[in-house]
């Protein structure tokens, strides 16, 4: 679906089979079981520090406006200044355009009501000072019975790689920490308890 080399869709069976982590599984099952309707739920509230929420519309090729970033979200972790009251708006402007453009497809799908699940190798696309990471992302659209709609994003940090990463693979330094086993399913099979050990918070 995506034309971006750093974003790869993943099958939902990974979630259903418990290979994507408890939080992702909970969010996906809640979305599916409630048919996309969000209600006050203490379990969802406890998940909220890890969530991002956005409006259900965006400019073409861009991510939608961010309305909430939980304190343990990867966004807050790596762009803490973006949510400061005096920070320039919108908060997503802190994300480099190359990254926003690359991950926008998933939001478009989610806005249409379909869930989106992918894995990303960010490389240097998140800008100076942000490490190269492998991220897992689930997007689902929730609405209230009154029609209030939000896209929920649960981003899971799977691995932080060497900062010496170069997007040109031929230039990757020999001490790169990239491994061939970075796929979450592989990690989950090997070390179920450690897969989300890097999860923020």
């Amino acid at each position, binding site marked *: 679906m995506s034309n971006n080399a750093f974003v790869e869709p993943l099958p939902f069976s990974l979630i259903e089979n418990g290979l994507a982590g408890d939080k992702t599984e909970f969010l996906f099952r809640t979305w599916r079981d409630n048919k996309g309707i*969000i*209600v*006050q*739920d*203490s379990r*969802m*509230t*406890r998940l*909220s*520090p890890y*969530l991002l*929420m956005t*409006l*259900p519309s965006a400019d073409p090729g861009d991510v939608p*406006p961010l*309305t*909430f970033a*939980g*304190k343990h979200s990867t966004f807050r972790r790596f762009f803490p200044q973006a949510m400061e*009251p005096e920070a320039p708006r919108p908060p997503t402007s802190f994300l480099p355009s190359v990254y926003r453009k690359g991950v926008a497809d998933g939001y478009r799908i989610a806005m249409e009501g379909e869930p989106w699940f992918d894995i990303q190798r960010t490389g240097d696309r998140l800008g100076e000072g942000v490490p190269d990471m492998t991220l897992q992302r689930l997007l689902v659209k929730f609405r*209230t*019975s*009154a*029609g*209030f*709609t*939000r896209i929920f994003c649960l981003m899971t940090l799977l691995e932080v790689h060497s900062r010496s990463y170069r997007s040109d693979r031929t230039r990757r330094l020999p001490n790169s920490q990239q491994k061939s086993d970075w796929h979450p399913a592989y990690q989950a099979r090997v070390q179920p308890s450690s897969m989300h050990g890097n999860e923020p918070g």
Partner: protein
Amino acid sequence: MTSGENAAGMSEEDYTKEQLEFLEIFEIAARYDCLFLLDFHCFDLFDHDQTSLLSDGERAQLAAAARYDIYAEAMQKGFLPKSSPFGGVREQQRVC
């Protein structure tokens, strides 16, 4: 009951600015069935979702944090910020 009173007979003047800020956000969240957003923001700020346990200052802090989140789409849904919890028009709401 006058337009400046609520069902309990209390007028806007009986509340502090901080209390009104929270009531305003709560009213909109309740109207648009998105009280979960207040829970999220409360939990994010205070590690619990019991707004009744918050001080007036903490409630105002919560209202400030949740304001954009709750207003953003409420206005897209046609919400016009014209009424306070007491039915009056408050000038600063016009620009939200």
